[in-house]
């Protein structure tokens, strides 16, 4: 199983790109991102911290899937999750506003 945290050449710790969940680390508010989910997961949860709402999206495992991002302020860290509980895998996506 891939280590939860990687230490790249600079020695700095990075957030995990879990073996079963891969995607970008930035997105635009109200936009969408494309993620790749491993073969054992058929749904993905997206949590908006500003409202604490979690939405669930069905995905095709092993394939690229586009999921919507909440329309939250720039700088918000959206939590993307596959699986449940202590074995879940996570991806944190920073919303970056493109407008002025």
């Amino acid at each position: 199983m891939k280590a939860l945290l990687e230490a790249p050449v600079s020695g700095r710790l990075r957030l995990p790109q879990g073996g079963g969940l891969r995607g970008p680390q930035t997105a635009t508010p109200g936009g969408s991102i494309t993620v790749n989910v491993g073969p054992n997961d058929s749904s993905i949860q997206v949590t908006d911290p500003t409202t604490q709402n979690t939405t669930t999206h069905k995905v095709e495992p092993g394939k690229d899937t586009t999921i919507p991002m909440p329309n939250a302020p720039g700088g918000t860290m959206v939590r993307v999750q596959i699986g449940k509980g202590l074995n879940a895998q996570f991806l944190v996506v920073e919303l970056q506003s493109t407008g002025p």
Partner: protein
Amino acid sequence: MRLDPVYVLAPKKTPRPASTRRMFLLTGGAFVAGAAVGGACGYSMGVAASQPQEAPRQPEENATPEYEKSGNHELDELRRLAVKAPLDELFDKSVMFLTMQMSDYKTDPVLWYGVDRMSKEIIDNPDRKVDYMVIAVVIENIKFLEPPEKLGLRTMIPKLKLRRDEEKQRK
């Protein structure tokens, strides 16, 4: 005059004394063993008596509680991370910890001690490499959930933001 024989018991033979050399060795060995045991006991008692006695510890105002088992294995593990796990482990699992706090356990009081530990470590130890996104997630949990007032987590937000920006610059 007739002399009748009188039978007298022969005197008991006095037991031969033990070999003087054997007795000497046994006695000497017992003395040495006793001296060794007594010396060790006396030394340890002296060391204990010479050390200053610690004053009874007063419970800290914000001391992390001994968490009770909730019966929910998942929550108990998160509580363990919050209160007992080494900081390295807590930071390793910080995204899981903070996300589950927000989505499933936002009212659990014990988990806030984990947020408190992370926040203090981030602020007080700039040598610890923490991804700026993790710091941002910590800030969001404090901002959008309801941490207990006594931990003063909201007052740490400005310093956490400074650390977040420092780490973002380094990236």
